[in-house]
């Protein structure tokens, strides 16, 4: 019998422990430990993970994250097994996040995140233009809840969408400070307002500003920590924002209530866009779009019955009533009585043009009406200005033979200084029949269906994906009630304007009669004409002024020739705080009231610096006490009595300037704009309508706004040009220079807005958008989160979905959750996307879900394919790979393959799933291999398997991830082959210990 040769030349079959060693393929092995068969025809040694990570950044500099990662001071108990690491890239570095005042550089940069307790440290591979790399400590702070045991350590779940990285503690960690409170809390403070709490001193020392706490079910944000002495004992104090993260401010009646520290989902996002001026900054924020808060002052302050924008001609004046802080908005409402909308028809104007008639093209009779500004016969400077053919005008005040001209007419033509209307011409009229008339332009009449009572509210618009924005809930406005009723403030009724001087307060009599020569003060419908009224006082009497309290005043002067006016509250003259007026326009100020009980507001007319007697016309006066109350049905804005349209204006601070790292008037940079809504008060029952009607849509990114009650036109926000200063300046720290307003003439409120909050968002205002989650995935620009916690309640088997490009909003409205299988008693552990599909892993089972534009469809369920931990799943170029005690699985987008089914028995495939020390899967793209680390299997305590996706081979590995010392060096963490960077990281930071 001849000799024979049996050759084995192929080895890529890998391990096969299922079959008898005699029956497996020639290229398979019974054991293949610490060997590699991925190179066809060869057995070689495997790679390992003993190298310190290093890369080359965009500036061609070598960068490795071995620096300050040794300073993770919050990480007691060590890293969280199976959690904590995340990598992402962005087209800007994080320059400025540490430095505060620098802008990120436009450099394609890689980042690595790792959790340091409940904080996230981020390694910036190219932190500056020199190409230096840097660890940014605590770049994100979820809170401070982190305990030592593996099951209680922070478990960060990350996702990156658009420009921001989000992170949530999947442990829903919390620490209870038992009996920390020293007082009860009432519910008089609404959500978003601050309150100072008295707590145990030792508990206060364990808390930090910016941290979130929970008392009962209400979540609060700490904005200040201090101490106080009560009965000789020092206590801690917490100033908190109430009702945060989607909760409601309620009463807490236990004066020894527990304070619970919690971690909340956060976002770190790069904002690179205009905010009126260029903005380029990384911003950390709570993930959910929080609504406007009332911290410090009201989010939206509504000044009824007056004007807040001080202006002279087209210049904004520094007296303008604007919020003291960014992210707040002031708004004013007044019945439209401005010259711009209201005119007079005169028999003969100053240019000699008289009322006349003519024939139209079809033979109809045309009346040519000379129009002029109120109080004169002069043609408006900008005529024809707002007059256009097709508009309607409303004429009132014609008398006797001119009465047929009263009514609504369409403008059919415009002459040199006349408005043409088609109407049968009256005859026999005289100048007296015409000259007391008024002409109102179309559109300045309030629509009848708008004549209701309303409360107002404001929401913020946060950045979303693409051009999408995410809208917060609506915060109800506070109203500053007018001292002077609407009709009196615009002199349409006399009311408490003093006409006889009878109260002895120094007011002057004969307000109604300027005398035969026209000198003095004469009250007309819509204004007070002042002429040669030196040292006379126009006064409003009331008992509602509080001595010494601050008041806002607003006085509109429609025409001005000479002299000056001194406006005061609770007193007369310039003896104390007052407002000086010596020009046309609206003048506003915040001044302290005097002590004369019956004086509301006084306007004393004096000669000007040149000795000229006062000559001016006042159109409106208003006074507000400088404290607001939240709007409700009982103090709602009442548009029912208005005869013409209302005018509204907005003012707010915004210029993004910083002094060093401190923001001045910058808004939260995530906020791209705000919306102001109006909600109707039901006439029956005094309740509120369900709908929030969109009144203002303000875009501070583009610097534009739309007033929906006026029309759909996009208008430009007005940047401050306070007299005496430069135009609005992004670096100026002077508040007045940062004032942004709508147009100075105000916006006409005349039609019912059609858009609603629900129409804009798909869910009602008041819907909770906040959720914590244990896993997340993005499919078709929608974020899916699984195993969620909303408020106090957990939903282990529930998924929630954001809308497209609204990556931080998870509306709890009943239409954004998906319960795939609620009866399986299992909980979701991981979501993973592949194409337009989503794999929902539970502990025992996995579900394949197809995502369509209509929703989600269950395509398959795979019993036995669940995982205990998210680290057991990895995405590869071949598909999704995961491992559990039952085997190794590959889903390639079309079919599921249990890779180990024909190679391992149940007993041989040992990965020992454990939630506290999870199995790890990683994908090495270069070799197309999946590395499987089984942390806790006896005998292979750093071992596992390597799955070669190219050949299908599985090999086993041991001690390729850590250098386990065999004799000494108990302190060694891991080794590195080369000298230089820390080879051994020791506790004292002084390098390796010597062997003993």
């Amino acid at each position, binding site marked *: *019998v*001849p*000799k*024979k040769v049996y*050759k*084995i*030349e192929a080895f890529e079959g890998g391990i096969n422990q299922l079959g*008898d*060693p*005699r*029956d*497996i*393929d*020639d290229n*398979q092995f019974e054991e293949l430990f*610490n060997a*590699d068969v991925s190179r066809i025809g060869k*057995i070689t*040694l*495997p790679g*390992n*993970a*003993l*190298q310190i*990570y290093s890369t080359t950044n965009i500036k061609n500099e070598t960068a490795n994250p*071995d620096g300050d990662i040794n*300073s993770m*001071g919050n990480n007691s108990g*060590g*890293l969280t*097994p*199976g959690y*904590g*690491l995340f*990598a992402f890239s962005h087209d800007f570095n994080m320059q400025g996040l540490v430095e505060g005042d620098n802008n990120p550089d436009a450099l394609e940069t*890689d980042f*690595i995140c790792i959790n340091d307790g409940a904080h996230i440290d981020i390694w910036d591979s190219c932190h500056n233009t020199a190409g230096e790399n840097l660890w940014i400590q605590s770049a994100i702070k979820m809170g401070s809840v982190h305990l030592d045991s593996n099951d209680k350590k922070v478990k960060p779940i990350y996702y990156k969408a658009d420009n921001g990285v989000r992170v949530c503690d999947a442990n829903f960690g919390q620490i209870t400070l038992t009996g920390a409170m020293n007082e009860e809390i009432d519910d008089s403070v609404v959500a978003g307002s601050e309150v100072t709490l008295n707590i145990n001193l030792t508990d206060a020392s364990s808390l930090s500003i910016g941290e979130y706490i929970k008392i009962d079910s209400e979540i609060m944000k700490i904005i200040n920590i201090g101490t106080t002495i009560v009965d000789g004992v020092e206590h801690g104090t917490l100033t908190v924002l109430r009702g945060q993260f989607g909760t409601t401010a309620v009463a807490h009646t236990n004066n020894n209530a527990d304070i619970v520290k919690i971690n909340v989902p956060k976002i770190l996002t790069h904002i690179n866009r205009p905010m009126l001026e260029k903005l380029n900054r990384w911003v950390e924020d709570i993930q959910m779009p929080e609504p406007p808060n009332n911290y410090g002052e009201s989010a939206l302050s509504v000044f009824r019955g007056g004007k807040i924008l001080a202006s002279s001609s087209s210049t904004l004046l520094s007296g303008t009533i604007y919020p003291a802080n960014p992210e707040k908005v002031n708004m004013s409402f007044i019945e439209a009585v401005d010259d711009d909308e209201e005119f007079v028809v005169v028999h003969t104007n100053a240019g000699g043009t008289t009322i006349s008639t003519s024939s139209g093209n079809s033979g109809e009779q045309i009346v040519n009406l000379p129009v002029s500004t109120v109080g004169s016969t002069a043609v408006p400077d900008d005529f024809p200005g707002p007059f256009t053919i097709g508009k309607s005008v409303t004429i009132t005040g014609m008398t006797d033979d001119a009465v047929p001209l009263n009514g609504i007419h369409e403008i059919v033509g415009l002459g040199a200084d006349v408005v043409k209307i088609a109407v049968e011409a009256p005859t026999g009229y005289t100048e007296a029949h015409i000259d007391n008339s008024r002409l109102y332009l179309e559109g300045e009449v309030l629509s009848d269906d708008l004549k209701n009572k309303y409360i107002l509210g404001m929401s913020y618009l946060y950045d979303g994906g693409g051009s999408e924005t995410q809208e917060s809930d609506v915060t109800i406005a506070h109203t500053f009630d007018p001292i002077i009723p609407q009709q009196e403030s615009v002199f349409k009724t006399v009311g408490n304007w003093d006409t006889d001087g009878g109260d002895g307060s120094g007011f002057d009599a004969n307000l109604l009669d300027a005398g035969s020569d026209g000198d003095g003060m004469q009250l007309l419908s819509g204004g007070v004409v002042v002429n040669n009224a030196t040292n006379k006082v126009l006064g409003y009497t009331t008992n509602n002024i509080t001595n010494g309290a601050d008041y806002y005043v607003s006085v509109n002067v429609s025409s001005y020739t000479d002299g000056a006016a001194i406006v005061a509250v609770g007193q007369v003259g310039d003896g104390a705080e007052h407002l000086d007026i010596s020009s046309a326009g609206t003048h506003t100020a915040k001044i302290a009231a005097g002590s004369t009980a019956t004086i509301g507001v006084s306007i004393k007319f004096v000669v000007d610096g040149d000795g000229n007697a006062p000559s001016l016309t006042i159109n409106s006066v208003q006074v507000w006490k400088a404290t607001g109350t939240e709007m409700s049905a009982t103090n709602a804005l009442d548009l029912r009595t208005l005869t013409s349209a209302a005018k509204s204006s907005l003012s707010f601070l915004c210029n993004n300037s910083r002094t060093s790292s401190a923001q001045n008037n910058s808004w939260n940079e995530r906020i791209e704009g705000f919306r102001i809504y109006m909600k109707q008060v039901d006439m029956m029952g005094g309740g509120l309508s369900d709908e929030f009607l969109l009144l203002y849509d303000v875009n501070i990114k583009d610097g534009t706004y739309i007033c929906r009650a006026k029309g759909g036109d996009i208008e430009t926000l007005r940047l401050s040009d306070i007299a005496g200063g430069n135009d609005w300046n992004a670096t100026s720290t002077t508040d007045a220079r940062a004032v942004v307003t709508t147009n100075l003439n105000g916006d006409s409120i005349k039609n019912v807005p059609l858009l609603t909050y629900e129409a804009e968002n798909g869910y009602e205002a008041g819907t909770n958008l906040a959720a914590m989650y244990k896993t997340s995935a993005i499919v078709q620009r929608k974020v899916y989160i699984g195993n969620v916690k909303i408020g106090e309640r957990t939903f282990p088997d529930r998924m929630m979905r954001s809308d497209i490009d609204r990556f931080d909003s998870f509306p709890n409205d009943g239409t954004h959750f998906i319960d795939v299988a609620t009866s399986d008693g299992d909980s979701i552990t991981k979501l993973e996307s592949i194409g337009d599909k989503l794999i929902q892993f539970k502990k025992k089972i996995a579900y394949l879900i197809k995502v369509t534009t209509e929703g989600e469809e269950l395509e398959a369920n795979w019993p036995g394919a669940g995982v205990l931990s998210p*680290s057991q799943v*990895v995405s590869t170029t071949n598909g999704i790979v995961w491992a559990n005690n039952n085997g190794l699985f590959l889903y390639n987008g079309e079919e599921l393959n249990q890779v180990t089914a024909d190679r391992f028995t149940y007993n041989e495939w040992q990965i020992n799933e454990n939630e506290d020390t999870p199995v*790890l899967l990683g994908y090495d793209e270069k070799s197309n*291999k999946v590395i499987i680390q089984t942390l806790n299997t006896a005998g292979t305590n*750093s071992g596992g398997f390597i799955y070669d996706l190219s050949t299908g081979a599985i090999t086993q590995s*041991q*001690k390729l*991830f*850590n*250098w386990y*010392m*065999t*004799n*000494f060096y108990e302190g060694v*963490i*891991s080794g590195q*082959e*080369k*000298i230089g960077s*820390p*080879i051994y*990281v020791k*506790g004292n930071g002084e390098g390796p210990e010597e062997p003993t």
Partner: protein
Amino acid sequence: MAIYRTNMISTKDKKLIVAVNNNSFQSQANINQWDDSAKDLYQWTGAANEFNIQTKDIDFNNPSRRKKIYRVYVTFKAGGYMSGVIAKYAVNGSDSFTGTFNDTTYYSATKGFDSFNGSKSNSTADWITVGLKPTSTLSTTKIKSFQLKFEFANAGRHSYSVHSTTGNVNSLTLDAGASETAGYYEGMPIYFFHGPGNGSRYRISNYAVAYGKIASLDTVDDGSLTDADSTVLASNPIATNSYYDIGFIPKEFAINDISIVYRDKPIK
């Protein structure tokens, strides 16, 4: 010691990384990266001891017929080093790998496949084919199946520090417990894993015991197996607190093919 590892992730530059620390140093961590190219399997880490390859139980496609095994030819390379990998065999599906092979030019039953001996005539890149003859003909004459195992020889020495330096730029004196046999460590790789010279890797080109246990070092990284490499320690000198690992499995070790020469026994 409790080791803590995070999840594993892929970076933008296509590297697989994981962060690691332990309970002694909780506020520190290393971020390690997977490198799939072949790596040394060291003794001092325990990785070499885990090396284990067991082929299928080969019945030569005739399970019921007895055979005689004459030789096993293994084509390997080890980069000019003594590989530290030895071969054993089991027969008839016993799973008892007690069978060994005789020493030959390119193989030592105690130290493994030897490309150091071969280095004088082969480059480090050459494949070497060695014919392994079973030490016992008895065990190979009545077999129906034959199974090969490759495992770590464990013939080196590790986790000891250098006794002294010789003043020479390419030699040192090993610790007192090192082998008394001249030439014992020749061809083995040596790696300094701690102390001065940390991270450097050489080959022991000569081992003399007459005047102390002096190991002469060279490097085969330049592809030359015969030059003096007289300056190997100059750039990265070692000292008495340098700790070494001799005789691990070098990353260059590879097996290309295995051929078994046998003869079927006549059927009686």
